[in-house]
């Protein structure tokens, strides 16, 4: 009954599979998927036993593959993934026969690989994968099971070589093929769970195990890993990629392909180093060291040893000690001891290689650039100062520290600079016997004791040509071993440091931890900062430069700046040169408007330079003092920076070496330039009333007012009025301010009477210019007179039709007749009708024509005569004259007031006769 049910169940699976396959042929993929899923569930309902386990798994694998493939085809990748996970969960524990456990691992690997392929295929057809869900993970898992297979195989298939493959071959069938997939060839057609023939069973298993021995596991693993690497590279997982490459490297190592292993490991090492994963780095380095040992690659062997001994290595001290001893052996040109856990046959082969290397002469010097990894010797170079004067020896320290367990000797330490001439002064060398190297004495100067910082101080005299230049340490070389044995040059570019030192320095800088006190001659390694370059600067000058002047400077004057140079040197200062003038780098306009000269007696023009370079002054004896006046003309106001630079040559001795130093001292001074005075120009009428325009042919006054703005007294030597052609002076033009001294805030005024003939254009008329010749009253040195030209403003000239001029005495007296004559002058070429009237005033009686109408011919004048009789004393208003021009209604009395006086001073009547009455009063 049970038996038949079992068969029936088997048929169910078969039936469903067939329907599904048929649907697939019909391209009815939905139905196909449905039926495959039913078939898959039915497979797992079968009773599983050791004898049919393989068949069940094989079938489950087939059906699963179909389901996943259809799911991807339906663009439901999540269904595919879910199905695959279910499949793995269901089958993971179905190992079957323990003696054939490798078979299960191989099957698991195959499942993952197949799913990975399906996934990858789907991506090629347009599916998008993500970082956390991509085919890489399935290949990686496949590789994992392949590795497990290898391990199981090595455990289960390590039969003695005397065991022979069974005959007849239990894996052979009559037809040469199996009836059904997943069945055992020696058990075909048997459905029973019992083992009918245990002996036959044993032979079958043995033959499978012996076959497994021939499988190249490493090759399978590497292929799967490299598939995974390609995927992770695509999905931006650099660390996963590195991890898989490490695994690949390790697999190559197991497969004895050490060259490939080393290449892969070397490639990924730096990633772990740069991210500071020391445990992982140490593990990779250990494998790499084994590879390089087995290949007898000396340089690689030394490089990995250097790092495994370093502070980043997490190896135990006994391991480090072993590696250090091996390293010393290599340095003495001996074969190192084999690395632990290496394949015995490979070790044998490598020992042969090592002995060949040892006997081979030449190529025994290796230069290893240690900057990019973390060697066991740390190096820091430090100049004692960021700059050195050329007459002081340059000093720097090289700090070395070893992190290995035992003290190590070195043979030479040399430093290279950007100027190679200095290299020869910076070498520490000690010749030592070959045997000394093992004698780990901590006494010698050339010995590095673990955990202790060694300091080497170097000193050299900089060349005078290097003044102003940077001296840089380009490399530090530490030589381990000797020429006779093997020589390893540890080369640090620049001032030392390695792959981890910058992060360490950063952490040390952040730390608030108090460091324990150390003896005077020792320093804390972390607190040392690399200083790989220094500046050579010129010798400190021993002269003084003083400037004497009277600021501020006045515009356009020859400003005197007296430079006093005094030597405090012990010996003669030779070839003293002075550079003086406007400091370069200021506004370009200032350069145009500043002139500097040594000759103060002449006024300089615009062709003079703003800076006088390298004026030879000659030699300066010790204690000698020298004065040099410099004249500066500033054309514009404002602040200027002036530079006074004195350079000279002097012989000095440094460390018993005579050098010729160039020294210089510079002084800068900011000088403000101000206007010496303000000049105000005014036009006024003859009545001293302000004029905004003048009238043609009518005299007016030009008033000038010089207001001193200088803090120093000014002497106005003379002044001069230069009139333009359109102006004429009424009387002699002469200066009234000659040799006037003006203190600050004082002013000097002048007045000139001018007349302007009628002009045709209505615009302004140039007046001319006003020239002031002046100088400081008390200059430092005798300086020329400065001529300042002031252009006078334009004036608007207007013609008037009628000019009235009054002719009257300067004062009147009470009750005494005051004759007044008005001249009416026709300025037009028309006949003018004039209405003249006289308005009476309270203070005067007058006789004359009160109202009259007259006619004046062109260019002629008429006189109107009045006799005023003052009645009151004091400043009295005159009777006012009114004129009305019939042709020119614009001619108002207002305008008239400008020309004729309106008031007059009236004196009281004399009382000579009445002196007594005053006395009585």
């Amino acid at each position, binding site marked *: 009954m049970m038996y038949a049910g079992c068969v029936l169940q088997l048929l169910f699976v078969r039936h469903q599979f067939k329907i599904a396959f048929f649907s697939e042929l019909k391209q009815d993929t939905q139905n196909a998927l449905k039926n495959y899923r039913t078939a898959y569930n039915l497979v797992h309902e079968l009773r599983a036993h050791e004898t049919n386990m393989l068949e069940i798994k094989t079938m489950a694998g087939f059906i699963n593959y179909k389901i996943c493939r259809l799911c991807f085809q339906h663009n439901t990748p999540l269904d595919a993934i879910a199905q695959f996970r279910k499949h793995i969960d269901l089958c993971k524990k179905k190992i079957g026969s323990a003696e054939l456990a490798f078979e299960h691992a191989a099957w698991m690997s195959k499942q993952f690989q197949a799913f990975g392929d399906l996934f990858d295929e789907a991506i090629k057809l347009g599916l998008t994968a993500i970082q956390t869900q991509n085919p890489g993970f399935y290949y990686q898992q496949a590789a994992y099971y392949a590795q497990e297979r290898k391990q199981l195989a090595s455990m289960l298939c390590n039969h003695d070589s005397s065991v022979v493959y069974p005959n007849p071959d239990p894996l052979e069938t009559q037809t040469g093929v199996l009836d059904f997939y997943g069945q055992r060839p020696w058990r075909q057609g048997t459905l029973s769970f019992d083992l009918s023939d245990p002996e036959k069973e044993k032979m079958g298993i043995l033959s499978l195990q012996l076959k497994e021995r021939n499988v190249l596991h490493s090759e399978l693993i590497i292929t799967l890993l490299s598939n995974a690497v390609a995927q992770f590279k695509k999905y*931006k*997982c*650099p660390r996963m990629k590195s991890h898989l490459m*490490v695994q690949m490297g390790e697999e190559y190592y197991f497969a004895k392909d050490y060259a490939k292993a080393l290449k892969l490991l070397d490639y990924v090492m730096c990633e*772990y180093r740069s991210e*500071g994963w020391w*445990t*992982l780095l140490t*593990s990779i380095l250990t494998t790499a060291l084994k590879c390089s040992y087995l290949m007898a690659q000396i340089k690689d062997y030394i490089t990995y040893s250097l790092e495994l001994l370093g502070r980043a290595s997490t190896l135990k001290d006994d391991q480090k000690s072993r590696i250090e001893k091996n390293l010393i052996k290599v340095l003495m040109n001996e074969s190192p001891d084999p690395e632990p856990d290496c394949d015995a046959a490979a070790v044998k082969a490598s020992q042969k290689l090592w002995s060949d290397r040892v006997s081979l002469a030449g190529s025994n010097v290796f230069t290893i650039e240690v900057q990019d990894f973390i060697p066991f010797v740390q190096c820091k170079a430090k100049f004692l100062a960021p700059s050195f004067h050329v007459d002081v020896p340059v000093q720097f320290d090289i700090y070395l520290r070893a992190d290995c367990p035992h003290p190590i000797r070195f043979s030479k330490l040399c430093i290279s600079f950007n100027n190679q001439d200095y290299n020869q002064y910076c070498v520490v060398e000690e010749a030592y016997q070959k045997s000394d190297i093992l004698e780990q004495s901590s006494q010698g100067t050339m010995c590095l004791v673990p955990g202790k910082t060694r300091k080497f101080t170097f000193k050299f005299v900089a060349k005078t040509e290097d003044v102003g230049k940077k001296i840089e340490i380009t490399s530090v070389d530490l030589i381990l071993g000797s020429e006779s044995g093997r020589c390893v040059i540890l080369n640090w570019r620049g001032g030392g440091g390695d792959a981890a030192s910058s*992060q360490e320095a950063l952490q040390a800088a952040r730390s608030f931890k108090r460091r324990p006190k150390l003896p005077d001659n020792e320093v804390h390694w972390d607190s040392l900062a690399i200083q790989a370059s220094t500046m050579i600067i010129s010798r400190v000058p021993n002269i003084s430069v003083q400037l004497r002047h009277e600021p501020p400077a006045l515009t356009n004057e020859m400003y005197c700046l007296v430079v006093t140079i005094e030597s405090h040197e012990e010996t003669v200062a030779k070839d003293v040169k002075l550079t003086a003038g406007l400091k370069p780098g200021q506004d370009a306009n200032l350069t145009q408007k500043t002139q500097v000269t040594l000759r103060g007696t002449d006024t300089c023009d615009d062709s003079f330079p703003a800076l006088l370079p390298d004026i030879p002054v000659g030699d300066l004896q010790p204690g000698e003092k020298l004065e040099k006046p410099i004249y500066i003309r500033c054309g514009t106001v404002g602040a200027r920076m002036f530079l006074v630079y004195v350079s000279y040559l002097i012989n000095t001795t440094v460390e018993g070496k005579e050098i010729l130093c160039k020294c210089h001292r510079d002084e800068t001074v900011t000088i403000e330039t101000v206007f010496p005075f303000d000049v105000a120009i005014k036009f006024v009428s003859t009545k001293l009333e302000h004029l905004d325009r003048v009238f043609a042919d009518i005299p007016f006054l030009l008033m000038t007012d010089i207001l001193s703005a200088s803090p120093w007294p000014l002497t106005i030597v003379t002044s001069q009025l230069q009139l333009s052609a359109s102006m004429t002076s009424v009387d002699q033009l002469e200066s009234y301010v000659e040799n006037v001294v003006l203190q600050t805030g004082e002013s000097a005024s002048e007045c000139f009477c001018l007349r302007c003939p009628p002009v045709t254009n209505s615009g302004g008329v140039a007046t001319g210019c006003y020239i002031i010749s002046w100088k400081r009253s008390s200059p430092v040195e005798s300086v020329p007179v400065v001529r300042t030209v002031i252009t006078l403003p334009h004036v608007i000239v207007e013609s008037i039709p009628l000019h009235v001029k009054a002719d009257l005495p300067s004062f009147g007296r009470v009750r005494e007749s005051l004759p007044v004559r008005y001249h009416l002058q026709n300025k037009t070429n028309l006949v003018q009708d004039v209405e003249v009237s006289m308005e009476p005033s309270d203070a005067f009686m007058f006789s004359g024509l009160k109202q009259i109408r007259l006619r004046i011919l062109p260019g002629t004048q008429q006189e109107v005569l009045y006799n005023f009789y003052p009645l009151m004393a004091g400043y009295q208003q005159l009777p006012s004259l009114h004129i009305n021009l019939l042709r020119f209604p614009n001619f108002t009395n207002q305008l008239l007031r400008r020309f004729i006086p309106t008031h007059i001073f009236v004196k009281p009547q004399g009382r000579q006769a009445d002196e007594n009455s005053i006395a009585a009063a």
Partner: protein
Amino acid sequence: MAVCIAVIAKENYPLYIRSVPTENELKFHYTVHTSLDVVDEKISAMGKAMVDQRELYLGLLYPTEDYKMFRKLHNSYTDIMCNPFYNPGDRIHSRAFDNMVNSMMMQVC
């Protein structure tokens, strides 16, 4: 269950890493290191989308457990950061932190 607990500095080097002593330590180191790929990706995505910055839990990093655990670990880490004698960036050597990590590993084992 917790088999390995690690605290990683922002420069991606481990400040603290501890795993169940019975298991292969190296394997866990590799696992933690590879999961940083996902952290990098998540953080860069965070910068773009400006998601809630106060949410520090990034979720599962490896396609293979517990938010409460993260909170506990993060609080303990914060305590270390508040220690005036701790220099940010140094590897963590703290008994309190060790005990907390131990309790987290014990609790679930």
